[in-house]
Structures are given as structure tokens and as C-alpha cells.
């Protein structure tokens, strides 16, 4: 019994002595122990608010604005005749604005079908690193509404404003696995108020991934299979009219700018167009070159 006590005493004494040696490192260790282990949201899951065509979980932070120019050229199938598609271009101009750090709104204008779009995006849950309150994935909601402003195809019949409207709802699940790999899976619903044939609601599953190459460049790839109505609409030869969207490309980031250069078979720059109205097969000669150019401005002048 006494022997045991002795041992315990010696143990404790040694332990406390040990605590006292090498005091500078000791102080650091002391801080270490008291550092609250609260988790922080992960940053830079993706480089930009778009992976390529698809939305990512990234938002503009509060009082920050993103001016975005997106271009898609024609397919390369006509070769040198139309300079591998560069003669044909359609674009989208948009302004995205961060209302809060997690809530972003935006407006855009598309060449295709002279479409205006407005949208909102909210980070419902943020992925957080290990520690207290950690959370393994990011969950983001994205919803938009678009107005096609082409003149009505048949002005003689009764045309309603509501037939110009289309909607998209999307939940974006994201995970940054490590510094090098991030993945997004986005169940999507696109609703057209007016369709010629087929269904009004198209469901799709967006799948995207981003791979870091260097500190400033990334390789991205995405594929958005539709889950219903794939063969509802046929062209004159009996082939399906619409195809799934595929894209791959690079992000190049230079301070306030992000350049996204890519190849995609999809035309159109909003979900309504590239998910449900893409008329190009996934094949080498139906790929088109495109780029997104993003410039961020900060209006946050508050003293921190």
C-alpha cells in the first residue's frame, strides 16, 4: 500500500516537474490546450460560383459583387469554315451580389432566346472542418426564374406572358475532400410553363468535380444526366432532340479575376437551356469552346 502510494507520488511529482521544464515551449503548449477547438467553414471548395455550367456552392460574400461574362462559341464540326466555331457566339452577362455571407442574388441576360434570368442562392449548411460543430458536407439551394423575350412564334393565337417563364430548383451537395479534390452532386428540377410536347418538369442529377493542379489553376469536369423525358421529343429523323450536358475545363485565377476556359457540348448558360434544351450529342466534333470571366468587386469599406 505504502509502496503504491510512493509510486503514485513520485509519478505526480515527476509529471509536475516535467511541466516546468522548457518554459517557452511550455507556454505555447499551454495556449495549445486552451485554444478553443471550434470548427470553421471550409473555404475554396470551388474556385468560382460556377463549376463550368453548373452552380457550385460558392457565393459572393456580403457586399461583394461579381461581374461575369460567359461565352459559348459554336461547335467545332464545321472546322476552319467558321473558325472552329468562333464565328458563332452566344453570351450571358450577369451581376451577382452577396446580400449576406451565405445569401447571394443575381440577374443575367442571355443571348439564347433573348432570355433574362434572376436567381437566389443560399448556403443552407456549410461544410466545417473537424472540431466542435463540424459538418461533413455543404448543402446549398439554388433557384432561378427566366423570361424568354423572343416575339411569340405564332402571334395570331392567344399568347400568355406566363408561357415565357421557366424555373429551376436545385439542391447542391458539396464536399471538399482535401486540398486537391472537391465534388458536387446537384439534384435539379427544371420546369417549363409551356412545352410543345413532352413533360413540363425535367429532373436531372448534376455531377461535378474539381481538381487542384497548382495554387492558381484547377481542372474541372461535370456531367448532368436527365432522369426523365429523355426521349420525349424527337427530331425529324426520329433521333432524340435533346442530349445531356457535359463539360470539362480549367480555372485560372489571377487575384480578382477568375478565367474559366472549357469545352462543352451544351449551348445556353442557364439550367433551363443547358440541361433541358441542349441539342448537341456528346462527341468530339460537337464540343464547343467557351469561357467564363469573373471579376469580383468589394463594397465592404467597414473598419474591421
Amino acid at each position, binding site marked *: 500500500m505504502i509502496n503504491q502510494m510512493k509510486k503514485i507520488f513520485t509519478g505526480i511529482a515527476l509529471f509536475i516537474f516535467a511541466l516546468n521544464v522548457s518554459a517557452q515551449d511550455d507556454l505555447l503548449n499551454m495556449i495549445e490546450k486552451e485554444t478553443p477547438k471550434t470548427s470553421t467553414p471550409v473555404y475554396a471548395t470551388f474556385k468560382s460560383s460556377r463549376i463550368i455550367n453548373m452552380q457550385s456552392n460558392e457565393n459572393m460574400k456580403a457586399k461583394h459583387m461579381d461581374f461575369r461574362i460567359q461565352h459559348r462559341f459554336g461547335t467545332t464540326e464545321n472546322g476552319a469554315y467558321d473558325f472552329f466555331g468562333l464565328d458563332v457566339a452566344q453570351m450571358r452577362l450577369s451581376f451577382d451580389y452577396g446580400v449576406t455571407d451565405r445569401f447571394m442574388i443575381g440577374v443575367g441576360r442571355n443571348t439564347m432566346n433573348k432570355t433574362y434570368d434572376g436567381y437566389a442562392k443560399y448556403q443552407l449548411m456549410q461544410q466545417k472542418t473537424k472540431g466542435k460543430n463540424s459538418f461533413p458536407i455543404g448543402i446549398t439551394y439554388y433557384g432561378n426564374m427566366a423570361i424568354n423575350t423572343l416575339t411569340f412564334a405564332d402571334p395570331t393565337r392567344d399568347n400568355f406572358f406566363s408561357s415565357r417563364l421557366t424555373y429551376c430548383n436545385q439542391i447542391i451537395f458539396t464536399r471538399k475532400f482535401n486540398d486537391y479534390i472537391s465534388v458536387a452532386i446537384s439534384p435539379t428540377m427544371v420546369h417549363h410553363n409551356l412545352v410543345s410536347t413532352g413533360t413540363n418538369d425535367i429532373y436531372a442529377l448534376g455531377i461535378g468535380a474539381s481538381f487542384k493542379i497548382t495554387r492558381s489553376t484547377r481542372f474541372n469536369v461535370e456531367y448532368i444526366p436527365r432522369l426523365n423525358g429523355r426521349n420525349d421529343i424527337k427530331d425529324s429523323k426520329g433521333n432524340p432532340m435533346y442530349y445531356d450536358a457535359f463539360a470539362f475545363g480549367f480555372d485560372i485565377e489571377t487575384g480578382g479575376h477568375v478565367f474559366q476556359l472549357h469545352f462543352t457540348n451544351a449551348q445556353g448558360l442557364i439550367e433551363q437551356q443547358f440541361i433541358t434544351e441542349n441539342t448537341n450529342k456528346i462527341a468530339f466534333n460537337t464540343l464547343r469552346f467557351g469561357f467564363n470571366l469573373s471579376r469580383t468587386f*468589394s463594397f465592404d469599406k467597414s473598419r474591421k
Partner: protein
Amino acid sequence: MKKILLTLAFAFSIMQVCNAQLFSTATGNISFFSKTPVEDIDAHSKTGLGVMNIEKLEMAFKVANPSFEFHNKLMQEHFNEKYMESEKYPFSQFSGKINEAVDLTKDGEYKVTVTGKLTIHGVEKGRTISGVIVVKDGQINIKSDFKVLVKDHNIEIPKLVTAKIAEEITVSVDITLLPKK
């Protein structure tokens, strides 16, 4: 005899722990500035951690890199993602010992130099940093401005932005320590 010795040792070590004149904080102000003709960048953390032993004249500070707030949140993201690599190296820290023999138990203003180790971006550098310590009303305030060369800590600045980010960053520390309970 052995028992007495052990007890003494035990009592002595406990005394040492209790007597240690420790001051600490979790709300130290640490900021840094980068000035170039093209762009001025500054960032500020209000959650610097610090501990000081005024008997041994030793101190240690530590700050979480993601706690630095920038006006431009994109810069904040780049700071963490590209330059500090905060996932790999979440903290910057300094620990050192005051070279002068000052009595910090008495109120007053002391100009001191502190020699120790500065660790940023996982790279440890021996440094001697000068500063001013003010002891007043049972509080200790430490103020210091010092320079950090980014290349000293293996922080690479891409050619494209060299005009915007200074090679020499001024770090400014203003930390008030209270007696540790």
C-alpha cells in the same frame, strides 16, 4: 527520509506552478499590412492568444490564420488557400524571452527586445523583436511592429500579382494580458 524528500519535491513543484506569474489573453489584436504602389492590403485578427510569465520573462503568442479579417473576402480566401495554406499550417506563432532584466511586477513602461522563434507557414525563424511593454493597473500591454519577409517563410507570390503584394509585410501587435486565473 525518501518519503520526506518526495513530499518536499511534490510541495515544491506545486508551489512553482502556483507561483508562476502568468498573464494571458485570448483577445489580442494582431494586424498586418502590405503596401505597394498598386495596392494596400491590411488584415486584422482580434483573437490572438498570448501567455506571459513575468518572473521568467518569457512569452508566447499564437494566432489562427483564418481569424484574419480582410476588407476583400476574396483576398481573405486567397490568403488562406494560396499563401498561408491554413489547412496545413493553421497557426502563426512566436515564443521568446526578454533580453533585458526588467521587473514587470512594477508599473511602468519598458522598452525591450525579445529573442525567440517566429513560426509562419510552418517555417521557424530565429528572431529578435523589439517592443514596448506597459505595466499598469495589474495589466500588461505589449506593443510591437516588426517586418516579416515573405520569402523567409517560403511563401511564394505568383509573378502575376507581385506588383500587388509586398515582399516585406509589417506585422503590428497590440496585446493586453490579464493575470491568469
